[in-house]
């Protein structure tokens, strides 16, 4: 009797923690994660997708329990997308590797390898992607300077001014929006307007006295030094955590 009771308990507890997701005909059946620990979600997803997932325990970060209710049957790829969505809420990212993947902090993911997409094939995903967009007109520096704020907290945009190229690193959906804006902006008309503006600025600069130019230079230097100080403080606090 005791043995039966023990067996029942193992079975019950295992089903309560490890079998929320059910597969039927290669499709994931409706399910619910209600205040479920992220570790349990990762385990479920790794079982259903048949991949190994490595996850570093970060003691400094408090991960909230997960809530997700799926009412319809979904494909495995859709499940993956929901998984990315849950991770992105906790500032986590999934980096795919040959053995499966690694769940890591979004700020660390830029140190890792990821697929590079061109502007036509950016996936609709909540996971981070790297996109290269080659602009037709010399507007990349203006675009990266003025639209930087459209990116997420850990998003990055780098412009290769000489090569008229934009390198965007962000969640797929945000990168797609950013590149879409860049495409709309990338016209001959805008390029002419931009060049005219640069020429006007240069002419205005020529009218400045030496003292005014010196003041501008000093102001720029102060801004650079302030930025450098912020960067140093950030990297110091990062090293302290590690």
């Amino acid at each position, binding site marked *: 009797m005791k043995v039966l009771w023990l067996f029942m308990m193992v079975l019950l507890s*295992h089903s309560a923690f490890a079998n929320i997701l059910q597969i039927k005909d290669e499709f994931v059946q409706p399910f619910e994660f209600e205040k479920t620990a992220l570790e349990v979600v990762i385990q479920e997803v790794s079982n259903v997708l048949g991949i*190994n*997932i490595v996850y570093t*325990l970060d003691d400094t970060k408090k991960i909230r329990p997960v809530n997700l209710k799926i009412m319809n049957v979904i494909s495995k790829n859709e499940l993956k997308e929901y998984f990315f969505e849950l991770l992105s809420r906790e500032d986590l990212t999934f980096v795919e590797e040959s*053995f499966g993947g690694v769940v*890591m902090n979004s700020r660390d993911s830029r140190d*890792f390898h990821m697929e*590079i997409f061109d502007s036509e094939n950016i996936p609709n995903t909540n996971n981070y992607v790297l996109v290269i967009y080659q602009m037709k007109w010399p507007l990349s520096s203006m675009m990266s300077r003025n639209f930087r704020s459209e990116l997420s907290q850990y998003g990055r945009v*780098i412009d290769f001014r000489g090569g008229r190229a934009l390198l965007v690193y962000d969640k797929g959906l945000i990168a797609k929006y950013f590149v879409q804006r860049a495409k709309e902006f990338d016209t001959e008309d805008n390029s002419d307007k931009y060049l005219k503006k640069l020429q006007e600025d240069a002419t205005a600069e020529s009218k*400045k006295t030496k003292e005014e130019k010196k003041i501008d230079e000093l102001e720029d230097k102060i801004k650079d030094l302030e930025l450098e100080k912020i960067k140093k403080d950030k990297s110091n606090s990062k090293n302290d955590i590690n």
Partner: protein
Amino acid sequence: MCKNTLTILLIILSLNLLAKEVSFFNYVEEYAKGNKLNYSISPDVKDFKFNIFGKDAINQEDVFKIITIQAMLNNKAVLLGGLDSFFKIVAGREIKSENFPTYTDEKLLPDNYQFVRFIYNVSFLDSREITRNLRPILSRNGRIKDEGIGNKIIITDSAKNISKILKIIKTIDTSLTKKYEWEEKELKEELNKLSERREGFWDVVTKQHGLFIILFSLIFLIIGFLFRGYMIRRIEGGL
């Protein structure tokens, strides 16, 4: 009471079955033992734990990859080279003083995150622009520098991050971007010329004020003498 305790114990047990929690040091030890490799861990590297979820067996190459990934995520680096069958794990701040295996062929780069050095010959773009712009996508301990004259760039970073950087460079290092770069340079020169301050009369006056004082003194001296001559001749009745 006994039943409840047993239930809690079973739940904990079932939870433990879900994931394999491993210590980094033990994981490295197991790998080295299995492959008969020698290794050294710097005293500055502290142990930590991570989880591996999943049922599939992981092959030895992937085990090493997981070691290098975990090292990267925790500001450490795995280095190979030097002695045979030997690898070492060092802390982030020690990387600078280490030597790395050097590669020049992208195809030979290892498929993991061990630290290596790569030398790349830039074909079209200015190597300075590449080094300046690619710094933000290097890893925390990664370095990139250009030789300047030979258009060679030297990247020190994890092998897989270097292969990502090389893909980016190859996408933009084309003859078309070279053309764009020339146009950009011409525009820059034109704008520089426009922004140069053209000196007006008063600029010249203030710049050469010593010369102008002498010049004006001479002019006024001549005018003064002329006026004096004219007045004398008036008084004396010459005019």
